[in-house]
C-alpha cells in the first residue's frame, strides 16, 4: 500500500511516500497511531492530521485495503491567512 505525505509531514518523514506492507484489517486511526509511535515529530502533529483514502477524506474507523492510495494530510493552509 502506498502512503503519501504532504506539507510538514513530508519533512518529518523525510520522503514523499512509502510503500508499506500493512496487516489485513488495519484502520485509518491505527495507521496514524503507528506513525505517531515510529516517527519523529510531536504528538500534536499526528493528532491534528486527516487521512485521505483514494482521494476522499476517511473516517478513523475506516479499514484500509491492499491497493488503496492513502495520504496523510496536515491541516491545510491554502488560500490566504
Amino acid at each position, binding site marked *: 500500500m502506498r502512503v503519501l505525505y504532504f506539507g510538514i509531514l513530508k519533512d518529518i518523514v523525510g520522503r514523499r511516500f*512509502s510503500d508499506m506492507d500493512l*496487516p489485513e484489517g488495519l484502520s485509518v486511526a*491505527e495507521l496514524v*497511531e503507528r506513525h505517531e509511535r*515510529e516517527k519523529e515529530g510531536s504528538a500534536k502533529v499526528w*493528532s491534528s492530521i486527516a487521512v485521505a483514502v483514494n482521494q476522499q477524506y476517511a473516517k478513523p474507523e475506516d479499514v484500509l485495503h491492499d491497493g488503496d492510495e492513502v*495520504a496523510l*494530510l*496536515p491541516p*491545510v493552509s491554502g488560500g490566504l491567512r
Partner: protein
Amino acid sequence: MRVEIVDGVIPAAEIVAGLKAGADGAVCVFDGIVRDNTRGRKTLHLDYEAYREMALEQMRSLANEAVVKFGVRDVALVHRLGRLVVGETSVLVVVASAHRGAAFEACRWLIDTLKRTVPIWKKEQFVDGAIWADGEPFPEGMGAAQASGTVRQSADGEPFPDEIVPGGRA
C-alpha cells in the same frame, strides 16, 4: 463553472469578465494575494503545494455545493501552486448571481471552506528561515485521529520497516 489548479499567473481580470452573463446582477470577487509579512516577519516568497488530484476534486465539489446552497448562477475557483512573490494572486474566487446578497455569502463561504478542507499547503520563506504555515483545524468529522483514543490497539504494533524510517534505524 471554471475550477482550476494552475502553475502560472492567474488571469484574474479575464476570469471575472468571462463569468459575467446577462442574467447576473452581481459579481463578487475574492482575490487572495501574497502579503509582505506574517506577524511582522518579512516574507520573501511563499511555496504552495497540493495533493493535486484530490484538491481539484474538492474544489469542484465546493463550487457545485455553492451553486446549490446559495442559489448563485455560476462560480469560478482557481488556485495557483508553486512559488509566489508578494502581491501575486494565490487564489481567486468569483461568484456571479442575480442578486448581491447571495454572491457575497457564497464568495465568503467558498474561501473559508477552501482554506479548511482543500488539501493545499504553503511554506513561508522569510529573510531568516522558512516554516510550513499553520493550518486551521479540520472540520468536525474530517480529522483522522479524533477517535484514536477509543480504537483498539493493532495486534502487535510492528515497527515500521527500516526503509521508511528517515536515515534508517539507530
